[in-house]
Every structure is written in structure tokens, then in C-alpha cells.
């Protein structure tokens, strides 16, 4: 102990002149500078827009005085622990004293601890005295909450000081590695940058991973690691060696100490990009293979992490990762954009990094390369095109009246005629970029936003028809909300007739085509306890038919369509027994309503409280008795009659 105190005292003797001179110079300059700063720069009252700083002078003065104290430790006290040993010729004096390296290390550590506490505290004290002397306060650093708690505001200066203090032991360590103990601060900055670049590279490649990392324990852990590195560098490295031997030993200790967090971070990054698919925290189903066996989904093991694409076999529960976080899959293959999800076999990639595209066969899990054409679409081979076009024909949800199918092929709109022949109409690339079904027609988006009428095979003139936010084509009649009016002000117009208001649709929302002649509509009364009104509207004679909603079972005041994967066609989607599914939900829970298209009876199904999990995502009706549901990170098969749930994924 005597030796430790002797070395601590020696450090004080060696550095006191410099530290006292620094303190006098910096604190005096700070006081003078703050005194000369213009009064309007400080927002004393709060809410001044023209102030340079958002809090008052007192708060800033205290933090700056404190920071000046910290700076003295960082720039002088820590680097000089080694630098001062080279005051004469070299540092051999301390190295040849009998057994002095250990006590020297402890003495320097004691001095550093004292200096690290004393200099910032002296700064704080002088800051407070200065602020008090000028009649200001420093209440901006904290505020009293109504319940008596004190909320510290932690201005950026204080956080920077904290980080700088964490670097102090590293400055000492790196100073002992450099010749003459020179450039310790610069070396530390370089060292932190090297470590930081590695960490930044991991974070940059794994957005959101930092949300799951507890940084402070690692940052605090860097202090004992640095001190261990110093101890090795100084006590062992300097025994029979100079800075080079110290650097070897210190870096070895540092590498040994950094290995566990590095391995851990690398493991986290690996898990981020290769999640355990049976232990996902987040799952969103994107598509289903036409046979209903394979699911295309995106998932991650933590909510804040980016999702990867995976393919799930519902028969076995097995899942495989098929793409990384930067690759999204879309069914948009040789057809306009209809939505990100659906039941398709072929999917294309959307890579953030560009280049060639790949086509994924969800049924077989096979990837094929495809060059990118001039229009940005994958240039398909003849075989690929034939397969894709066959699927487009088979899986199309567009229908003209009388159940005639319509689909897109190579930018051409194909429509089945009543005699079975196919009429083709070359579409304009601009309006075929993205479409959304709207009864016996579809809305177009992009350069031309209007409605295509499948019955009349024509694009409605938007200005003439004033079609804007909502439009539905029912045979040769268009039911729409004219541009510039509210969402509930419905009009309808025949092919050549004039637009006329639909009073029966007042304050209602159209859900979709119930059949070739009627629209299924809902009207929310927006009153507590009042169920929504469900009815059919026939544009031909403007008549309505009310459907009875089971009042007690419906939690919400409104209804929406429940279609598998949210993909609706011209007609509302229906299950194998021909029923349309609706959904009513509020913040307490949800229920499905099944509308029998034959009897027009409405029955409530599968009531589900919110506390039992998030809202259901309807995936498929595999048969008339079951429904396939995604909920949270699970995929379920639910027996419609009994409500029995079978977890198809994950099967941990």
C-alpha cells in the first residue's frame, strides 16, 4: 500500500502543474465566454423560437463546466499516465525499480480514479457557483413530475461526457502501446473507429437488431476490459519490454476480451439473417400454393427485426428459409400489380440490390433465373411464360358478367366470350401497371386512373364519368362516388345514361359483388350497441334487400370482407359451400359472419377475444369444414363447427 501511495503521489506531483494550469485556463475562458455570449441566445423562459439553445444559460453553463472537467481527464490526466514516464530519456527508470510495475499500475489507477472524480466535480462546482453568481438557475437538467419523481433530461453534453469517460481507461491502455506514450487520444479514437466500423457493419446489414441489444452492460464491460489490458500491458509488457511488448500483450487481452461480445454479436446477426423458423415471434403470410399445401410467409425471431421469406409445408410443419431480408417476393409476373399476396405458384423477387431477378416456384421450391427486360419485368423463357400464363388463366379472379373469366397476358387483357372464344385487347402499359378489381371491371392506377368496364370492354373517361375514390361495375352500370363529393354520396350511371344519385346507398359502403346483379353493402350506424346494417343493392332497379345480422354476436359497428389473403375478385370470395365471409371486429375481439348466398342467412362463426391473440388472418378454406387462419406467429386450422384449433405451424 505504501508503494501504491508513493506512485499515486508521484503521479500527482508529475501532473499537478499541468492540470492546475488547464483548469485555470479553461474554466476562466468558459466563464468569460459565457459572459460575453448574447443574452438572446438562451431560452430562459422556454418556447422562444429564435433562441440558439432550447434551455437556459444556467443549464448549459453547468454542463459545459462539467464537460470541461471531463475533458481535462480525457486529454491530460489519462494520456499523461504513460507519457509522463518518458519525461527524461525513456521509461526505464520505473521499469528497473524492484517490483515497481504492479504498484505503479495501482498508483496510476488510484490517481486516475481521483482525477476522474475530482476534475468533473470541480467543474460542476465552479459551474454552479458561476450560474448562481450570475443569478440564473440550472433547472433545465431535470424536472419535477406531478407524482414527485425527478426526471433527468440528460442533455447531449452529459451523454458525450459519459461516453468520453468510458474511453478514459482505453486512452491509458493505448498510450502504453505507443512509442513514448504519444498520441494516446488519437490512437484511442482510431481504435474506437476500428471497433465501431465492425459494429456499424453488423448493424447496417441487420436493421433493427440494435433494438434487441442491451448496450449499456457491454459499454460498462469495456471499462474492466480496458483496465485488464492496461494491467497486462504495464505490469507484464513493460517487464523486459517496451511499448511493442505492451502492445502485443494488451492487444491479446483486448482481443480475448472482445471475443465473447463479438461472437455473441455475430451470433445475433446470424440468427437475424437465419432465424430459427420454428421459434418466430413475427409471421406474416403472403401467399399460398394453389394446392393449399405450401405457405409463403415472412417472419423474424424478434418483432423489431427485418423479416426473411420462408416456405412452410403445412402437411409436415417444416419450414425453410428461401430468401434474405433484402429480398421480397411478389406475384406480379407478366401481369399488372394486384397486391402483394394471393394464392399463386410462381413468384418473382424484388431485390434491393437490383440485378437479375429470380422466379420462385412455391409448389416445388425451385428457383429459376430470369433476366430483367427493358420494362423492368423478368424476361421469362418460353417454358416459364407458358407456365405463368396457364396459372394466370386458372387463378384469375376477374370476371365479366355470366362468369366469363378475364386475365392479363403479356400486357394484353384477355376476356372469355360467351361462346368460349377469347378476345384480346392490347392494353396501355401505363394503365396496366396496377389494377384493383371493382365488380365486373377493375380500377386502374398509375398514369391513367380510371375504371375498365369488362362488360363493355372499355376504359371509362375519368373526366366525363367523374369517377374518383370508389367505383363498382355491375353488368353495364357503374356505381360510383363522383369526384369531389363525400364517400357516401353514391351515384350510378348506365352505359349511355346520365348519372343519378343512389339514395338507397346513402351512408353505406360497398363490399363487393354478391352476384352478377347485386352489390353487398353495409351501413354503419356508428351508435354504441347498434349493429351494422347489411343489405344487397340491385342497381338495375335500385332496390335493396336487407340481410339479418345476428346482433348479439357482432362486436363492432362495422363489417368488412374476409377473403383468403385479402384477395378479392370480381365477385366476393366464397368458401367451398358457396358462402361469403365477413368480419366484424373492435378492440375487444372479432367474429366472422358467414353469408349463405343461397338462403341469404347470416351466421356468426369463430368468435375470438383479443386477449387470446391478435386478429385472425384468413388464409384459405381447405374444405367446407375447416378454415386456415394465421394468428400471431402461428398458422392454425380451425374446425368451423367446433372451433377446435390445430396448430400446423410451428410444430416445436
Amino acid at each position, binding site marked *: 500500500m*505504501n*508503494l501504491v501511495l*508513493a506512485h499515486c503521489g*508521484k503521479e500527482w*506531483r*508529475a501532473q499537478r*502543474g499541468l492540470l492546475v494550469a488547464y483548469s485555470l485556463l479553461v474554466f476562466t475562458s468558459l466563464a468569460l465566454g459565457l459572459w460575453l455570449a448574447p443574452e438572446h441566445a438562451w431560452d430562459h423562459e422556454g418556447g422562444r423560437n429564435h433562441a440558439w439553445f432550447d434551455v437556459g444559460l444556467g443549464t448549459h453553463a453547468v454542463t459545459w463546466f462539467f464537460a470541461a472537467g471531463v475533458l481535462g481527464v480525457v486529454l491530460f490526466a489519462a494520456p499523461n499516465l504513460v507519457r*509522463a514516464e518518458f*519525461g*527524461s*530519456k*525513456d521509461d*526505464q*527508470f520505473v*521499469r*528497473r*525499480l*524492484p*517490483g*515497481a*510495475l504492479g504498484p505503479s499500475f495501482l498508483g496510476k489507477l488510484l490517481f486516475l480514479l481521483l482525477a476522474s472524480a475530482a476534475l468533473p466535480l470541480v467543474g460542476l462546482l465552479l459551474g454552479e457557483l458561476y450560474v448562481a453568481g450570475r443569478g440564473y438557475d440550472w433547472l433545465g437538467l431535470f424536472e419535477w413530475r406531478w407524482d414527485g419523481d425527478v426526471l433527468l433530461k440528460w442533455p447531449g453534453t452529459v451523454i458525450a461526457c459519459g461516453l468520453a469517460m468510458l474511453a478514459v481507461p482505453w486512452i491509458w491502455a493505448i498510450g502504453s502501446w505507443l512509442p513514448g506514450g504519444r498520441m494516446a487520444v488519437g490512437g484511442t479514437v482510431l481504435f474506437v473507429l476500428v471497433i465501431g466500423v465492425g459494429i456499424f457493419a453488423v448493424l447496417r446489414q441487420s436493421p433493427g437488431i440494435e433494438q434487441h441489444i442491451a448496450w449499456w452492460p457491454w459499454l460498462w464491460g469495456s471499462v474492466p476490459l480496458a483496465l485488464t489490458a492496461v494491467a497486462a500491458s504495464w505490469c507484464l509488457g513493460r*517487464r*523486459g*519490454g517496451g511499448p511493442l*511488448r505492451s502492445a502485443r500483450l494488451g492487444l491479446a487481452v483486448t482481443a480475448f476480451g472482445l471475443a465473447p461480445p463479438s461472437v455473441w454479436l455475430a451470433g445475433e446477426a446470424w440468427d437475424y439473417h437465419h432465424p430459427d423458423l420454428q421459434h418466430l415471434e413475427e409471421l406474416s403470410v403472403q401467399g399460398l400454393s394453389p394446392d393449399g399445401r405450401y405457405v409463403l410467409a415472412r417472419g423474424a425471431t424478434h418483432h423489431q427485426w427485418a423479416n426473411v421469406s420462408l416456405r412452410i409445408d403445412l402437411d409436415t410443419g417444416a419450414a425453410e428459409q428461401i430468401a434474405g431480408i433484402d429480398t421480397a417476393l411478389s406475384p406480379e409476373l407478366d401481369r399488372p400489380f394486384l397486391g402483394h399476396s394471393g394464392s399463386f405458384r410462381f413468384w418473382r423477387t424484388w431485390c434491393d440490390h437490383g440485378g437479375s431477378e429470380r422466379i420462385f416456384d412455391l409448389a416445388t421450391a425451385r428457383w429459376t433465373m430470369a433476366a430483367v427486360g427493358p420494362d423492368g419485368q423478368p424476361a421469362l423463357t418460353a417454358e416459364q411464360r407458358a407456365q405463368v400464363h396457364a396459372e394466370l388463366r386458372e387463378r384469375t379472379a376477374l370476371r365479366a358478367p355470366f362468369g366469363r373469366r378475364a386475365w392479363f397476358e403479356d400486357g394484353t387483357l384477355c376476356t372469355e366470350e360467351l361462346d368460349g372464344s377469347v378476345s384480346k385487347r392490347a392494353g396501355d402499359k401505363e394503365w396496366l401497371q396496377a389494377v384493383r378489381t371493382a365488380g365486373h371491371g377493375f380500377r386502374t392506377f398509375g398514369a391513367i386512373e380510371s375504371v375498365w368496364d369488362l362488360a363493355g370492354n372499355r376504359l371509362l373517361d375519368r373526366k366525363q364519368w367523374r369517377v374518383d375514390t370508389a367505383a363498382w361495375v355491375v353488368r353495364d352500370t357503374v356505381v360510383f362516388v363522383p369526384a369531389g363529393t363525400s364517400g357516401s354520396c353514391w351515384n350510378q350511371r348506365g352505359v349511355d345514361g346520365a348519372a343519378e344519385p343512389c339514395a338507397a346507398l346513402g351512408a353505406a359502403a360497398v363490399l363487393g359483388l354478391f352476384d352478377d346483379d347485386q352489390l353487398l353493402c353495409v351501413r354503419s350506424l356508428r351508435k354504441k350497441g347498434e349493429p351494422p346494417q347489411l343489405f344487397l343493392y340491385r342497381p338495375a332497379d335500385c332496390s335493396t334487400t336487407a340481410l339479418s345480422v345476428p346482433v348479439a354476436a357482432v362486436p363492432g359497428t362495422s363489417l368488412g370482407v374476409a377473403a383468403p389473403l385479402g384477395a378479392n375478385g370480381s365477385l366476393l370470395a366464397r368458401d367451398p359451400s358457396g358462402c361469403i365471409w365477413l368480419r366484424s371486429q373492435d378492440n375487444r375481439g372479432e367474429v366472422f359472419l358467414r353469408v349463405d348466398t343461397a338462403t341469404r342467412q347470416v351466421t356468426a362463426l369463430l368468435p375470438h377475444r383479443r386477449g387470446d391473440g391478435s386478429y385472425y388472418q384468413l388464409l384459405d378454406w381447405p374444405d367446407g369444414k375447416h378454415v386456415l387462419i394465421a394468428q400471431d406467429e402461428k398458422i392454425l386450422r380451425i374446425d368451423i363447427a367446433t372451433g377446435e384449433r390445430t396448430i400446423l405451424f410451428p410444430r416445436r
Partner: protein
Amino acid sequence: MNHVMDIEGLVFDFGWGPRKKRVLDGLDLKLQDGAVTVLLGQNGSGKSTLLRVLLGVLRPRAGRVRLFGKDPLRAHREVLQRIGYVPDVPDVYPWMTAKDLFAFLQPHYPRWNATLCSELCERLAVPMRTKFKAMSRGQGMKAMLTAALAPEPELLLLDEPFAGLDPLVREQVLQGVVEALRDGERTVLCATHELEIASRIADRVAVLQDGKVVKHGSLAEVLGEEEPAQVPSGLHRVLAAAANTQEVLA
């Protein structure tokens, strides 16, 4: 029986790779206990390097170094507490005074003799309150000699302590050394290239050349070699001159 100092096959390099320079190359040396051995060699022959290896300041590449039967690197405290060292120039902290230096050194040496320290300071006229950065080289060397002798070391290592001193101070320092040598069975190794020093204090002489001890014995034995070609020619002439000086002194 352990010698105070026993060196076998000592190898030391400065630098590494193509710029590596071998300074000590298989050096063997055993000191006769209680004798004053002068290590003679030209500038750059590795005398100071050898002393620094003995002090545990430098780590040899190969070889065996034993001081009091122990490795100075492994038993650093135990060995160094029994050694006094005077460098070629004062290398203590420039802000220190001699008083600070002695106060700082005292807890490192259990056998520190404060009375002897005071006597030496008085005899050598060491300025106690002058910082080293303000001392002349001679004053600094006197303080270093005092610091080396105050712990009553069993082995005294001198690294050309008389070089560059003016004649008066040089005589004072030399006198201090000579008086210290009278004190019991102290073993001394003094590195120098000055034959006059060797002639005045040496019981034995070791000649260092090309990283090896090429001659080791009494001054007469070293000079009486039949084939002095192994001794550098210039050094041989100087040695001969020194022998004459010794005769004159005798």
C-alpha cells in the same frame, strides 16, 4: 554455489526481420564475487544492453541470466532490491529533486540506509532541492550514485557513469565509487571504454567484442595474452597504455 552473476549463451537482438541487429551473441560471463569487474568495449559493443538485460529492462532472445541464482525477469523485486545501478545519464523524472527521488525510492528498497544516503549527499555535495531538469550532469550523476548506494546493494552496476563529466566532478564521482568499493564484499560491474577507469578500479577486466566476451581475467592476464589479435588492435594499444599508467601509479 551461486555466483552473484552468472550469464550463459546470452543472445539479444534489436529490431526484427531484415533490420534485426544482433547485439549480444552467445555471451558468457561469470563475475567473481566481491571483485570489481570492468567491462571494456568500444561504443556500441553492447555494454549498456548487457546491463539493461541484467536489470530486467530488456528481455533476451536466448540464454540464461542468473543474479544471485535467480532470473531477474521472474524474480524482479527480489533481485533488483539487491542491485544498485548508475546509468550513463540521470534518467529520473525531470520535475523531481534529489530529496523527492530518495523519498520515492526508499519504500522500494527494504535495506535503504537513510543515514548513508545523508552522508553520501553531504560528501558528494548533492543539491537536495534542485530539480533534476535544473541540475548539471555532474550533480545529477552524484545524486544517481547516492541513490544507487543508499540501499547498500550487493551488486553495483555502473554504466559509464564518468563519461562526459568535467575532470573535477569526474574525480568526485570516481572517488565516491572507490570509497563505495571499500565497503565489504560488494561486487561491481562497471561498463566503460575508458582504460583509465579500468586501471584505477578494476580487479578483473572483461572485453566485449562482437557480442561476446573475448577476454576475461585480471588486467594483467588480459594484457598478457600471447595472441592479442583477438583484442581489437586499437583497444590493445589503449590497454597497453593503461598498463604503463598502472605501473606509473604503482
